[in-house]
């Protein structure tokens, strides 16, 4: 197993796009976390003397300011923090739910598997995104609900992948050996099944982070996610899109950061998939 991991790590390192994406992502995350100490401006303070100023490294506002004189550098970094946080938390939620659901369905097999698979099929046939929109409107715009509803949409594909993998692992000799030595089903799932399907799970979880970030910023763009005065990349882009004729940087700064973040996450996920040799389903 460790030999395989070493080979995978070597393949990953020899992929320039993935390496670049990893470093760019780490730099962006570090900037998002350390930003508040690099720049004296605050997220919400209004600087009436510098309303909608252009970006420039000489002035106080490196990325310029918005219509209300708020510092775009700080707001964009705050938005990036929200996006990265939502991406990580929601993908962990969908990972845990999808992994346990898929592993149980695949390992149990038979009737239970059939039932659980039907459930996944029905749910993925529904226009879930519209439900999420209705849900967020109905139950107030609360950020915890946002995590839950995004995770609720994300786990289906994960469950499907895990189930497929479990079905093939279940027939291996070492599982038979574990059953013969009297291990319980839950112990077999945790100790033998899950460690052996970790490759595709890591790949899919990595690739689901950008999708979740995209979804969160989409909801925020529509005004259903993070609310003022908090900033999310989606709300910043919505603001910027309204100002783009007179002050294009209000759009370009958060839009560029979101695009860069998503691009890097996708490139890294693709690199990981190639390195671990997981097939796209």
């Amino acid at each position: 197993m460790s030999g395989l991991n070493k080979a995978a790590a070597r393949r990953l390192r020899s992929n320039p796009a993935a390496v670049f994406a990893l470093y760019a992502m780490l730099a962006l995350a570090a900037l998002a976390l350390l930003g508040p100490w690099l720049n004296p401006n605050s997220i919400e303070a209004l600087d009436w003397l510098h309303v909608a100023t252009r970006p420039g490294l000489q002035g106080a506002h490196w990325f310029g300011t918005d219509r209300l004189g708020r510092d775009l550098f700080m707001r964009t970094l705050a938005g990036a923090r929200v996006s990265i946080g939502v991406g990580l938390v929601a993908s962990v939620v969908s990972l845990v739910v999808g992994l346990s659901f898929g592993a149980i369905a695949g390992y149990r097999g038979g009737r239970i598997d059939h039932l659980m698979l039907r459930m996944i099929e029905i749910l993925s046939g529904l226009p879930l995104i519209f439900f999420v929109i209705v849900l967020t409107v109905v139950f107030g715009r609360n950020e915890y609900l946002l995590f839950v509803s995004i995770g609720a949409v994300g786990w289906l594909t994960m469950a499907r992948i895990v189930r497929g993998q479990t079905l093939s692992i279940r027939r291996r000799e070492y599982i038979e050996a574990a059953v013969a030595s009297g291990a319980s089903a839950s112990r077999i799932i945790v100790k033998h099944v899950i460690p052996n399907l970790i490759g595709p799970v890591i790949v899919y979880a990595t690739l689901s982070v950008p999708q979740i970030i995209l979804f969160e910023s989409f909801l925020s763009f529509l005004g259903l996610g993070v609310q003022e005065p908090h900033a999310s990349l989606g709300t910043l882009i919505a603001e910027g899109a309204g100002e783009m004729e007179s002050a294009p940087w209000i759009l370009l700064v958060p839009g560029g950061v979101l695009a860069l973040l998503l691009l890097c996450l996708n490139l890294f996920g693709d690199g990981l998939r190639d390195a671990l040799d997981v097939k796209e389903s």
Partner: protein
Amino acid sequence: MFRYFLSRLTGAIPTLFIIVTATFFLMRAAPGGPFDQEQALPPEIMANLESAYGLDRPIWTQFGRYLGALAHGDFGPSFKYKDFTVTELIRQGFPVTLELGLIALSLALSIGIPAGIFAALHHNSAADYATMSLAVLGLAIPTFVVLPFLGLLFGIYLHWLPIAGWEPGSIRHLALPTVALALPPLAYIARLTRGSMLEVLRSEFIRTAFAKGLPLRTVILRHALRPALVPVASYLVPAVASIMTGSLVVESIAGLPGIGRYLVQGALNRDYTLVLGMVIIYSTLLIGMGLLVDLLYAWLDPRVRP
């Protein structure tokens, strides 16, 4: 085949019923109502309004009446757009949304598939890497970032195209929104086609076709393309869903008079019937697309024919 199709068609009815029921009761569970305003209405007027729309009756009666009307194709009156029925609102806006979506989908297919074949035929060459890098870019950057960027470039700096607004039959006004809408599915289709084409090209019957001395063009178009398109066909439902979701933001950014704005606005306004109507339209489209994909499958891959 026909019987299979018929059984799928009847299977769609319970799904739709579940969707309608879930949305109906979800909307009703929301705090607030359609007639809430900044200044509260006098209770008498409120009571009159509620009785006019049947909101004073027990919720199960309301649900039954709604289903009854729905069975006759009547979506009911809109609560917010006072003089309109939901059917009228949808009839006005739907052609715009449909045109936008259909152009975007055909753009995605007609560029994505050839791009994928091209990349597969030049496997591991610079052309392959370039195409696939562009595909990652198209996949990664969200529609609501792409469209304003395109507007900035082609509308404000170059003055080639209008950034927003709409005129009936004007393709210029639809150009940027459709391109923005088409990009993510286009990129995904290109990647799918490349992957499956690479796999098909390695198979025995393709080697046979080449061994017979057939030209490349014939091998690709007559032998390889059909099996290679199976994954693309199964992606069509998510593609339509992606275009629908995209149209929500694209219509609002570009100021198009489609039905995209009704879903979010309707839900915010507690316009129960409008939200239900929208959810039904979208679900029906998705389910219909699923049926179409089943038929396509059977045509593309004879092995799945029941």
